[in-house]
């Protein structure tokens, strides 16, 4: 099976500290990382704060420019894309963030935010789009009556469903979800995790699930990549990594999960 996404030797550095630009120290947030994701599969990207997992996700989405390395999507080099081809890539790869507050306009009814994605990618005729917004709401388990409410009036779980609906609007093949359930209560978290599973089954989506929560990773992922200080220290089948971690850091991480005395 061919890989949908292939990342090779990707590095991204940031300047830190004071002084003139050329005197600043550069810190590698992502350091020579390679990974691949197959169609319809889920890669869990796990690590603690500062490990570089979000930066890696942003590089793949094109929200951050990597210093070195290649990203290819469906066999095509992504960094060389421009114009219509770039727009098409963006349609096929969509983000879901921890707090959709940040991606929803606070003065827009949430239905309009979902519709914007359809408008932007010119999906369907304008008349069909209204209908499609309501379909998307139903798809993610939201009461369509909520489409004309403001984000502030929705609960965290409902806002996250809106975020997922907006991501699904363009019929993507890969969703990069950055801590999508970390801010949610456990009963709501279970509903959103179920939604991801359903979507994947029904639509054949590939997922990169970025999280610090090992319980969540274990539940949703086919494969896991463990990040530590910018590098992937261990990658492989989820069951194998959870039961027989090889790298010292993976072991430390697993041992730190609270468990009954």
């Amino acid at each position, binding site marked *: 099976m061919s890989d949908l996404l292939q990342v090779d030797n990707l590095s991204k550095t940031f300047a830190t500290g004071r002084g003139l630009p050329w005197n600043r120290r550069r810190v590698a947030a992502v350091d020579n990382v390679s990974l691949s994701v197959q169609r319809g599969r889920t890669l869990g990207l796990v690590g*603690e*704060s500062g490990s570089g997992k979000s930066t890696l996700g942003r590089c793949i989405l094109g929200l951050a420019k990597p210093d070195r390395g290649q990203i290819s999507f469906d066999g095509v080099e992504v960094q060389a894309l421009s114009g219509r081809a770039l727009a098409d890539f963006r349609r096929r790869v969509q983000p879901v963030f921890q707090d959709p507050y940040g991606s929803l306009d606070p003065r*827009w*009814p949430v*239905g*309009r935010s979902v*519709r914007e994605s359809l408008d932007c990618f010119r999906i369907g005729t304008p008349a069909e789009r*209204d209908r499609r*917004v309501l379909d998307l709401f139903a798809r993610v388990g939201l*009461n369509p*009556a*909520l*489409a*004309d*409410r*403001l984000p502030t*009036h*929705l*609960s965290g*779980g*409902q806002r996250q469903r809106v975020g997922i609906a907006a991501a699904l609007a363009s019929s993507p093949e890969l969703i990069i979800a950055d801590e999508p359930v970390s801010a949610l*209560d*456990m*009963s*709501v*978290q*279970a*509903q959103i*995790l*179920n939604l991801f*599973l*359903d979507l994947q089954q029904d639509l054949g989506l590939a997922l990169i699930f970025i999280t*610090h929560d*090992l*319980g*969540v990773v*274990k*539940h*949703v*992922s086919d494969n896991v990549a463990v990040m530590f200080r910018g590098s992937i220290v261990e990658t492989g089948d*989820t*069951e194998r990594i959870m039961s027989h971690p090889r790298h010292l850091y993976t072991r*430390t*991480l697993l*041992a*730190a*999960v*609270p*468990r*009954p*005395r």
Partner: protein
Amino acid sequence: MSAVLSFGNVSVGFATPNGAPSAPAVNGVSLEVTRGEIFGIIGESGSGKSTLANAVMGLLPGSAAVTGSIRVNGRAVLGLGDDDLRGMRGNEVAMIFQDASASLDPTWPVGDQIAETLRAHREISRRDAQARAIALMTEVGIADAASRYSDVPHRFSGGMRQRVVIAAALANDPQLLIADEPTSALDVTIQAQVLQLIDALRRRHGTTVLLITHDVGVVSQLCDRVGVMYGGKLLEVGATRNLLARPTHPYTRALLAANPADARRGTRLPVVPAEWSVESLREAELLRDSPSLAGAANE
């Protein structure tokens, strides 16, 4: 066995802007926390767990109306005057929160902030308070405490800041420590260290701990007993191991089943039934109370 903290039929309501009383945030909670134990209160957002903890410390806003009785070491705390409350806080009872930096003055050396807690409650010379603050910092695991005494909070990592706050909380050897989500903002490896620290301090000083959390894992590792809150009510209380293994209340059962850590990979998680779901509770209210912007969607 004596109760360090006891709640007798405690309810908390908040006045709403239009004057009508709200649904109670805490609803008829009765509970006794025994000396030396770590008691966990677990619940989702809006369950009233933090309101209950804040009521002990007199930290609720003026719009709150508390009824029932709360006793610390047998003394009623509701209705205590400002002076008495100030004498109790940070002395008899200490409290730590999720966001340690909100408890610390960003412009002040952390050591001085710990020393201030000491000097607020007892006659102690500046030098002795300083020495004691350094000893406390060492005890909570801050390496090379003497040289870090003068550092301001932002020179510490999140986990280290939480240790500083714990050192200040322990300064006057309180009998009761209330910890409201103390590790929720920390990475899992740091969380493990802070949980170990709280447990070690309890063993060393016999401090009673009331731990507020949403995290079943934290409760299972640290707490002797646990109470489950939902919609302001304390649904059930039991020894941690028993309660987690054999929950009696349907909500507790549903909540524990929803934990992905215990589920089989790739299977749908059992969902908390609608009548107990935090979400569905709100949806009806929301559709009733929030303005519809129909038409605006197409502008």
